[in-house]
């Protein structure tokens, strides 16, 4: 575990890198968000939530531009994270960054925006 208290995930098919940028916690996901990835994503988001609750960070950015696939179990893990952020705090804004040329990414995350429209934003950027 590094100084962010978030373990880096680096398995063959899935990676997560955490970095601090001022008061914002950045999580960059890459690889394949499949059945193998779910447990890693869940653990990472639990650690991220602990950091957010301790008020070290006031914003969260989740960059999925380098993701090749995101399955419904990974989406469900994000749904639960958003639910806890809203219901139990700290209620921080969450920005998802998607590749402007990859149409499935914003489509997959649209349901998260509909779940928490005041807290979730989706931003398209160059990959």
């Amino acid at each position, binding site marked *: 575990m590094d100084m962010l208290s978030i373990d880096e995930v680096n398995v063959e098919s899935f990676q997560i890198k955490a970095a601090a940028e001022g008061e914002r916690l950045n999580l960059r996901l890459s690889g394949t968000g499949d059945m193998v990835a779910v447990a890693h994503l869940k653990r990472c988001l639990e650690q991220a939530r602990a950091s957010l609750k301790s008020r070290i960070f006031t914003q969260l950015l989740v960059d999925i531009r380098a993701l090749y696939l995101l399955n*419904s*179990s990974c*989406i469900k893990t994000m749904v639960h994270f958003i*639910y806890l952020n809203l*219901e139990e705090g700290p209620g921080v804004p969450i920005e998802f960054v998607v590749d402007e040329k990859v149409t499935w990414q914003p489509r997959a995350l649209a349901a998260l925006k509909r779940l928490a429209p005041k807290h979730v934003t989706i931003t398209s950027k160059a990959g």
Partner: protein
Amino acid sequence: MRCFPGERMVTAVSNLVLEFCRLLVTDPDVADRFHMAAQELVENLVKYSSGEQVSLTAEVISEGGDAVLQLVAKNHSTEEQLQAVERKLRELTSASDPVEFYDRLIREAAPYAEGSGLGLARIRAEGEFDMDYTIDGTELTISVRASVHPPKA
């Protein structure tokens, strides 16, 4: 494709479907939608199969002059599992607004850390596919389909 229902096979099979679709359709977005559907269908096969083999077929068929790309997933399940999935599939396929249905499932699932149950609803809502299913004895067949525009030869 017919194989044992192993977790390691899931992404490999869905990637094959993606490559197959890329050869058959001009719009990469359509190929991505089938990729997502294949991933969710094969994960379901692995999670809920009680048999030794499962199968996923990807095919282009002609319907009234239109080209239709279809995925057909088959597996055997226990009676209890089949009853549960039939309830879900009946509700899902009869929902008039697939996005609203998917959003409702998400809201209901949100408080729970475990389980998903979103995959099939996602296929209809996000993939905008027609979906059908049959149960014959212990065999469950789920098919999803969409009209496509194959590249000109």
